[in-house]
C-alpha cells in the first residue's frame, strides 16, 4: 500500500488530494505508477494524459519519473513547481 498525494491541477483533475492504492508488482517505477493510475477514472486519465508535464516526490524528496517505487510510503504527483 502506498499513499498518493496530488497537488495543483493534478489534484483538481483527479478530484482528490490524496488516496491510498495497492499497485500490482509489475508497477516498478513512478512512470509505471502513472500509467497504471491513468485507468482509474476519467479524472486520473485527464491528470496523467501527458507524463512530460508531471513531476514527483518519493517520501518528500523530488524524484524523476524513472525512479523505482521500492519501499516508498508516500508518493506525490504534481506539475512543475512555480513558487517564489
Amino acid at each position: 500500500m502506498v499513499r498518493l498525494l496530488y497537488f495543483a491541477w493534478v489534484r483538481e483533475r483527479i478530484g482528490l488530494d490524496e488516496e491510498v492504492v495497492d499497485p500490482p508488482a509489475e508497477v516498478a517505477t513512478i512512470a509505471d505508477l502513472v500509467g497504471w493510475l491513468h485507468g482509474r477514472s476519467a479524472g486520473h486519465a485527464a491528470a496523467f494524459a501527458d507524463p512530460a508535464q508531471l513531476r514527483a516526490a518519493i517520501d518528500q524528496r523530488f524524484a524523476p519519473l524513472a525512479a523505482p517505487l521500492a519501499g516508498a510510503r508516500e508518493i506525490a504527483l504534481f506539475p512543475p513547481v512555480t513558487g517564489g
Partner: protein
Amino acid sequence: MIVVSVQREPFSLDAALSRLAMAGPGAVASFTGLVRRDDGVEELLLEHYPAMTEATLHQLAEAAQARFGLAGVVIVHRIGALVPGDPIVLVATAAAHRQAALDACAFLIDRLKTDAPFWKREQRGGVARWVAPRAADDQAADRWR
C-alpha cells in the same frame, strides 16, 4: 542562524533584518517578491506540499550558508490567497561583506523558484489558471549549479 517560515500572514522585512543584525554581520541583504499587478491578475492562490516545504527551504538555506559563508538566513514564503501588491516571498541574508550577502540572496530566490514545492494559480476576469513554469527561471537556477 537559519529561520524558515511558510505562513498565510504577511511578514515583516524589518523584523527579519533586525533578527539577522543580531548575528553581528557587516552586511545584510534581502529580496522581496510581490504579486504582479501589471497583467490583470485579480488573485493569486499559492498551494504547497506541507510535509515537504519547510524541509526543502531549510536545505536551501543550509546550502546558501555553506556556499557563501553566511552568518544567517531568513526565508519566508506565504501561502493562500493573495492580491496584486501583496508580498509573497522574502529571502534575507547576513554575511561579513556585501558580495556574499547579495549573491546569496540571488542564489536563494533563483533556486527556491525551481526547487521548492509551491504552485501558483492566477485568477483573471474570474477565470483561474495554474501558472506554467518559465524557462528563464530554470536558466536562472542552473547558473548556481
